[in-house]
């Protein structure tokens, strides 16, 4: 079974620039999550999708972050414009069920450096 795919693996941008990350979840997984993991911290949920609908985006900084999940499969997370404090690893995860008790399968992450 193929795992969660993410690209790019690394990205370096200047502050105020835009960046987009892509995620392909495990086939058949209805729930998709985007997390932000700052160095030395645990992952922090940014947004959760159930199929192509948003379940929870309460921790997404909506003035600069946006995410979509077209057709309930792939998802993109965008930051526009980026700030220095956005430097982190952005993790995508998927699960077969909707509840947080379901095992989440994580991708390798995209390491973003904002200069």
């Amino acid at each position, binding site marked *: 079974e193929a795992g969660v795919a993410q690209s790019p693996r690394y990205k370096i941008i200047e502050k105020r620039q835009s960046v987009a990350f892509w995620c392909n979840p495990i086939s058949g997984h209805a729930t998709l999550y985007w997390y932000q993991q700052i160095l*030395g911290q*645990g992952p922090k949920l940014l947004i959760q999708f159930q199929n192509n609908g948003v379940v*929870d985006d309460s921790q997404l900084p909506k003035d600069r972050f946006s995410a979509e999940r077209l057709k309930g499969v792939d998802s993109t997370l965008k930051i526009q414009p980026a700030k220095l404090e956005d430097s982190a690893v952005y*993790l995508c995860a998927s699960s077969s069920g909707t509840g947080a*008790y379901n*095992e989440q399968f994580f991708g390798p*992450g995209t390491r973003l450096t904002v200069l």
Partner: protein
Amino acid sequence: SQKIEQNSEALNIQEGKTATLTCNYTNYSPAYLQWYRQDPGRGPVFLLLIRENEKEKRKERLKVTFDTTLKQSLFHITASQPADSATYLCALPLYGNNRLAFGKGNQVVVIP
């Protein structure tokens, strides 16, 4: 506010010994708790889930306990091996079990 605490200091342990990690939480009443493993440059990998009515859960050399009175979970790796070296994260549900909150993680280094 709700808090999850894991020891920020790395645990260095001799191969073959038992590594024990602690996850404490406050202002929570979680119905379950999860443990994940994270290797450098990789995403977390799910290890175990323990429910509030389960005192102990085992998986191969891993053992997890859940004490809802102490608001604490202990994670044990028995007969530790260098391949067990990683960061271990505990995670608990928030707000009606729809969102997982992760602790900062605790690094384990197994010395051959």
